[in-house]
């Protein structure tokens, strides 16, 4: 751990101004990722700019949807009446993540920037291109046939430089509901679709999002879901709570008057380098009757481009089955989610 200075920002403009003066600074909100990574030596900021007091902690609703301040805690968002009623997939995804204590501290803005959970990223003694570009990918391994501990790694969107999976649950739901990220910079404010916010690793795995160094997330907007939409998040993990997703699926679905799927948004967690929007699955579902065959075809389409590694090949079948399960539950509720 390195010595650092701590300052408190009083407004978004003040926070951005302070960041402009301190290129080695980091914003700190709930701190549930950043402080952890600082203790591990992965993050070594000179200055922490506290953004807990910018007045970004409100939730308002209008005819366009829900406007969520960046500093709303994960717990408050998950327990919000409108979220539970109109965006259940959001509430379910948040409550599937971390622990109560962490969700009380974590913020929705911070969760968009959640640090990677790959063991190689989090251990400064190990090679990791995401942490230290050019050092290699420990999860991929040093020698052919001797891959690293990559059971938790991604099968979609990986590159030779990084195969880590994106760890968030909430972000998977954000992609599924087509949320927008509100971003401020000294020059202007902008909206970015959640789906576009995350960057594939490619040759630059160290750049994880489209957030610029001089930008601040100020909020999230949840658009109204289509009338009659059903939504659900399901997560498969190694224990019942406090474990990262092996696989997860967030789906928003509507059926037309004839009982056919006329709107589908599908996002997958635990399997992608980023929260994984599957247009392939959506296209396969559109206009189909909600049958097991259609669901299976959509799941196969979602993983058509998947690349397995030594210890995570199971994620392809499990990811498909997870998506099929969610689709079945959405059209035939209660068929099997009783533990």
């Amino acid at each position, binding site marked *: 751990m390195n010595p650092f200075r701590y300052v408190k920002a009083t407004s978004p403009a003040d926070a951005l101004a302070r960041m402009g003066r301190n290129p080695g600074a980091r914003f700190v909100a709930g701190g549930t990722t950043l402080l952890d990574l600082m203790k591990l030596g992965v993050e070594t900021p000179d200055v922490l700019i506290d953004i807990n007091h910018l007045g970004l902690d409100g939730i308002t609703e209008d005819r366009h949807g829900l406007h969520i301040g960046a500093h709303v805690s994960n717990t408050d968002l998950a327990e919000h009446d409108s979220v539970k009623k109109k965006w259940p997939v959001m509430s379910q995804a948040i409550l599937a993540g971390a622990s109560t204590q962490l969700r009380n501290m974590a913020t929705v803005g911070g969760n968009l920037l959640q640090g990677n959970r790959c*063991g190689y990223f989090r251990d400064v003694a*190990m090679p990791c291109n995401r942490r230290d570009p050019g050092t290699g990918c420990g999860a991929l391994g040093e020698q052919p046939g001797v891959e690293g*501990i990559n059971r938790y790694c991604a099968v979609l969107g990986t590159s030779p430089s990084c195969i880590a999976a994106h760890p968030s649950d909430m972000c998977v739901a954000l992609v599924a509901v087509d949320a927008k990220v509100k971003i401020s910079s000294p020059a202007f404010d902008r909206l970015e679709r959640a789906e576009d916010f995350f960057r594939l690793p490619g040759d630059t795995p160290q750049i994880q999002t489209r957030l610029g160094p001089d930008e601040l997330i100020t909020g999230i907007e949840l658009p109204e879901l289509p009338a009659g939409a059903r939504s659900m998040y399901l997560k498969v993990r190694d*224990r019942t*709570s406090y474990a990262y997703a092996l696989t997860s699926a967030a789906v928003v679905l509507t059926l037309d008057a004839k009982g056919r799927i006329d709107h589908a948004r599908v996002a997958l967690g635990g399997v992608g380098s980023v929260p994984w929007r599957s247009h392939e699955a959506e296209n396969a579902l559109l206009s189909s009757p909600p049958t097991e065959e259609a669901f299976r075809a959509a799941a196969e389409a979602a993983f058509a481009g998947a690349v397995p590694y030594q210890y995570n090949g199971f994620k392809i079948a499990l990811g498909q089955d997870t998506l099929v399960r969610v689709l079945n539950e959405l059209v035939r509720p209660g068929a*099997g989610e*009783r*533990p």
Partner: protein
Amino acid sequence: MIPKNVIGAGIDRVDGPLKVTGGAKYAGDVSLDGMVYAVPVTSTIARGNIASMDTSAAVKAPGVRIVMTRENAPPLFKGGNDYDDACQSGEDWMPLQDDEIYYDGQIIGLVVADTLERAIHAADLVETSYQSCRPMVDLTAALKKPDATQPATALGQPLQYERGDVDKALAKSPVRIDRTYTTPVQHHNPLEPHASVAEWSDDGSSLTLHETSQWVVNSRNSIARMLGIDQSKVTVRVLSPFLGGGFGSKGYAWAFSALTAAAARELGCPVKLVLSRRQMYSLNGHRPSTTQAVTLGSDRRGRLKATRHLCGTYTSKVFQYIEPVVLSTQLLYKCSSLRTGFDLARMNTGTPTPMRGPGETPGLFALESAMDELAFATGVDPIDLRRLNYAERDPRTNNRQRWSSKHLNECYDKGAEEFGWKDRPKKPASRRDGRWLIGYGMASATYPAQNTSSSVKVSLTADGRAEIEVASHDLGTGTYTILCQFAANELGLPVSKVSCRLADTFLPPSPCAGGSQTVASVGPAVIAACKNLLTFRKAGMPGEETVTIPGSQPNGFSWQSFGAQFAEVRVDAALGRIRVHRFLGIYDVGQIINEKTARSQVHGGIIQGIGMALMEATAFDPYFGRVMTPNLADYHFPVNADIHGIRVSFIDEPDPHFGPMGARGLGELPLTGAAAAVANAVFNATGIRVRDLPILPDTILAKG
């Protein structure tokens, strides 16, 4: 018969209020005037040599008092390898004395600074370069290397063992089960991290150590030896009044304690060292992985004719620890032809050490899984199979020697009744509730009983208060409470009038709080001292009595505890999800002293067993040998949401041939066999036989 109003009653922990109010001071809570903070520098490679260490930046960092490396460390000495004389260190080697790296996370330096944060920072500033080699962290490969050995014995019992003619009996057996089972590396993970606070007197004539120790007498002797202290000249005192769990990892003495004391000696002020969670994955032992080939031969009705159990496991490069895996196989069932074998490899890992139910826990996973496979192969009910092969007398003595007491059949009966075993799905994968397949499984549990010499002092005041003093330990298990119960019962006092001081080497000595022996060793000494005080008590006079009770000698009986454990699991096979819906354990451990603390301890063992079955495993990078799961987010054990419907019952029959109360030990027993009960239930639910722990979602998917 001991009256039930005090002995056996579910009396609340006497130390409970202290713990919930924060009044209980653990080693890491100790804060002394002028105290400074030590942080170990640890290796980031698992095999090789230190080429150079640059400490210049660390030495200059703010608040740093000393940076110790091999260049300037004082000479330190091996801490002893003598369990019987209470001088048992965890490793037969000391850090900072040479350049060699034997395992990942090995101590290669110690930084001491005026605050913890400054010490952590300075430790990060030490630059180390290595000449590294590919470490050996693959058990299968390590077992084929020339440094693998076949140790003859463990704990005085033969590992390489044969009775009858196994090969012949196997050849003649119409039914054979021949399978290999594996268990992974597991870490104890007590919630309380290991800690040491060392304070020397100004003239160097005495050293006080606040330790996380399950055995303060041993800590004293072994740490003194590491430091080169002559105890006739320097008084060493070790205190460990409260422990936040240990599970074996705080039994033997570890080098970090001696380094803390050495730093305090160099600096002339008290030093505190608390291991980080990551460091706890290298520096205080673990349960080694095992690979176990079990062969059972039986007749068509399931009567065992031959048993063969061959285990491969490992130790580190700096200590010969033997996980005594095959011992329980030699005694659990009646079988006239039986062989056990044992291979011990050497690997570049931290040193393994006893962990709750060492040997029995991995061993019974294999044996009790194989018994379930035999039950399935013969079509015999798993309980009937065990009754059919019941060992009425100790099979190791040609079925001659009697057990001091054994009520395992009653465990089976009572368990079957309470669990509703008759409703078990007769065919695997035949019962479901929605998407969830339902299965029942069971397994036997067993662990030896023992006791060791202990001393105790009991003082009585004229107004009828008693105080017990003994260097025994309470790991959170209830020792404070049950010793008070013994004294209250003997002296005819309410428990509230009895107090107890523990875990201080200035108190009368007592053995390791390990091997499930505390009640059986310390209890008789408390009873004897109280009996000697009865005349004072009756006369209303003050008095005190110190007694030493020898450990009991074998008295013509075999001492062993038993149990039967039952699990109902629900498996969502498509997604690989497994839930232990309910778990029942029935235990035969003789007299129960405190029904509440006993139940609590057993709950913990069962939960640990569920963790072993379904999630616990330490992963090492196969190329670098680095521990890749060194925290409680990546090393999974059960959380509250994983645990449902645990029920515990005791046979509660005093053992007439074991100590004055007939109370055998309890601590380890519930973990033995528990994982097999879960795995057997998974088979019953799904038809999928998992022989490699843990049973993860991908395990089910791969085999489904």
